[in-house]
């Protein structure tokens, strides 16, 4: 275990480890968000996923999100780990832990973190379905390029 608060790793994420990173005597509340690989998305079955990242920039952006949070919600402490590589159903893709003296901030800051991850952190998900594979194109998951190739009809 490292003590880095913001990490992109290619091995399973331990939730307890992130909780420990943000635990403090002045904290009364810790929230965690655990993003797992869901089997079904809009009626389509996922077999497994691959996450790719621009790792150094992804770590930098996670750290930037932490800074944003600690300035918006004073007295919070944030840790985020994102996993990359191949993930199977139910595997943990991301864990966000936020500690705060009071619970309201811990919930709000945590939700802010996942929204920002989906906006600015250079990580991409490739869904492997039963019938093909797709790069998931944006955070709303509604821009998909079948077989990784955008076609003219889509533009």
């Amino acid at each position: 275990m490292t003590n880095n608060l913001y990490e992109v790793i290619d091995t399973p994420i331990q939730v307890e480890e992130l909780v420990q990173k943000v635990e403090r005597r002045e904290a009364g509340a810790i929230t965690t968000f655990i993003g797992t690989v869901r089997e079904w998305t809009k009626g389509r079955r996922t077999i497994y996923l691959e996450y790719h990242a621009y790792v150094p920039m992804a770590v930098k952006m996670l750290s930037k999100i932490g800074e944003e949070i600690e300035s918006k919600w004073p007295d919070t402490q944030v840790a985020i780990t994102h996993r990359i590589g191949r993930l199977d159903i139910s595997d943990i893709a991301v864990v966000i832990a936020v500690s705060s003296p009071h619970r309201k901030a811990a919930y709000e800051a945590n939700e802010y973190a996942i929204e920002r991850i989906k906006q600015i952190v250079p990580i991409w998900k490739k869904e492997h379905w039963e019938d093909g594979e797709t790069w998931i194109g944006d955070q709303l998951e509604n821009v998909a390029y079948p077989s990784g190739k955008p076609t003219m009809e889509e533009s």
Partner: protein
Amino acid sequence: MIRILLFAHLQDELGTESIEMDGEMTIKELKNNLLLDYPSLRLDSVMVAVNEEYALDDDIVKSGDTIALIPPVSGG
């Protein structure tokens, strides 16, 4: 030399993880140059990072910079 990193579907389309370009130019010019070489490239919703920070169309890149073309992200 400017190094341009490719990710996700851009990497698949160009079949390489990075390409190189010479000169000094704005991000907008760099994008236009890319489209001359690869007319089928979809760059509308692609963001650009210079040395691991997001950059704007008018920002200037020069030899030694590392550019990344960032398609809409889908982490989390």
